[in-house]
């Protein structure tokens, strides 16, 4: 479903050009939930951002559901893959009511009957039809992240790229959000790629994961290998022991 080959990414220009991702190769199967863990600055989010065309200076190939993300049809791509960002305070337009935020992507993509679809989406993510008239500042952090999720589901994608979907939320709200993400994944048959710095979250959510450090994938593990502490790399061991203290 997601195929990343020889991905290299650079930031900056001239003497300041920094090589931030080095030869990344990843394969994610349809219906799988794949995790990316690592410290901040290791390039986890950059992989997701590059996949959806938010980064310019890169080489290699990324295919999502058979669409080449560099040369393929961009409209098709965004209908197939959507992103959920970390910070629901920053990712929703403060002067748009919830309904308009969700409607915008559907209007751009000429989807008919979007009024009805807004209500379906809000109900699917555990809010009510009345929430479409609220502004983001009238919602809690967890509700805002649900609205952002409703927006990313509006185009009926097959793939969701989730960038730290719960790190801005309280533990109690995180539990609700993770349960919701799992339920929606099963119901809609989605494929997930989840970036998280929390290895416990990844162990709960993901079938397989890649551990990143300094712009490289140091190790790819299955959930079984992670839980059996069958990791070769010191950095992974450090992450595991830090989460178990």
């Amino acid at each position: 479903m997601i195929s990343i080959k020889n991905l290299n990414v650079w930031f900056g220009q001239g003497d300041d050009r920094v090589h931030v991702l080095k030869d990344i190769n990843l394969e994610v199967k349809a219906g799988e939930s794949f995790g990316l863990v690592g410290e901040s600055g290791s390039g986890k989010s950059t992989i997701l951002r590059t996949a959806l065309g938010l980064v310019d200076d890169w080489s290699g190939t990324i295919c999502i559901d058979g669409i080449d993300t560099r040369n393929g049809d961009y409209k098709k791509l965004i209908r197939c893959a959507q992103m959920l960002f970390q910070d629901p305070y920053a990712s929703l337009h403060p002067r748009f009511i919830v309904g308009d935020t969700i409607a915008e992507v559907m209007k751009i993509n000429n989807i008919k009957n979007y009024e009805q679809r807004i209500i379906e989406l809000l109900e699917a993510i555990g809010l009510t039809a009345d929430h479409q008239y609220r502004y983001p500042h009238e919602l809690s952090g967890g509700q805002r992240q649900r609205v952002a999720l409703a927006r990313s589901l509006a185009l009926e994608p097959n793939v969701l790229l989730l960038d730290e979907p719960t790190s801005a939320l309280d533990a109690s709200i995180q539990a609700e959000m993770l349960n919701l993400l799992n339920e929606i994944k099963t119901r809609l048959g989605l494929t997930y790629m989840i970036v998280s710095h929390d290895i416990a979250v990844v162990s709960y959510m993901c079938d397989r994961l890649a551990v990143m450090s300094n712009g490289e994938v140091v190790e790819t593990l299955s959930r079984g290998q992670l839980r059996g502490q069958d990791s070769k790399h010191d950095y992974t061991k450090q992450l595991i022991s830090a989460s178990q203290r």
Partner: protein
Amino acid sequence: MSDHLVKVSDLQIGFKNEEGELIPAVRGLSFTLGREKLGIVGESGSGKSLTGRALLGVLPPNAVVSASHLSFENTDLLTAPSAELRKLRGLKMGMILQDPKYSLNPIMKVGNQIIEAIQVSNKISKAKAKKAVFDILEAVKIRDVKRVYKQYPHEVSGGMAQRIMIAMMLVRKPDLLIADEPTSALDVTVQESVLDILDNLVDERNMGLIFISHDLNLVSRFCDRVLVMYSGQVVEELVASKLHDAKHPYTRGLINCMPTLNGSLEPLPVLKRDPSWLGAAQIGSGK
């Protein structure tokens, strides 16, 4: 000097809404702090940060505060003149805020900001201050201190900015440090080194630390005592190492809803809020 660094009894903080009604945010909070590490945990909106801010006197201007007692060492924080409070804040009390993006001055180089913090309390030469800045930045495990000294806040990463903020507070060597989610933005590996620094300061300098966090596991590992807050009240007070023996359903709910590395893959238990918790009796302040 009294045996308590901080004493708070019956602290109430509220905000007026548009109709002029007072909406309570902290209801009748009491606690004392010695030279120890006190953790305050709870969900967002439970009043933990407001409590910390009330001690420093840096609440938003529309907040309405009352208390039967609010003191730091021998100073009554409710009646002290603002010049005295300002002195306390400069020298003896410090606060580390959650978000370094908003708490550092964006148009001032990192080194100069820390020098400014030093010279508030200590009129030393620029050269000496510069040396102190290098030392404290090294202490918070910043690798290339000479480069960071000359950078602006937007040129450093979030984790680095947070450590700069911590360095800025520690360099004044306060007696009381209020740390509001100081490590939430940091990676686990960096988090450990920041906690070590705070730990050493409490031990060596006999500092009092109020550690505000929503991470129960972290608090139970790091602090001596924990107050669990729900909706502006303390619902439970615990010895930190006994956090996992907590009785209150709210505390239990907060512990159980966290995924664990080897936990079940069934849906996570979700916190069910019980209206009766609001009326829960205030648990007495730690003796």
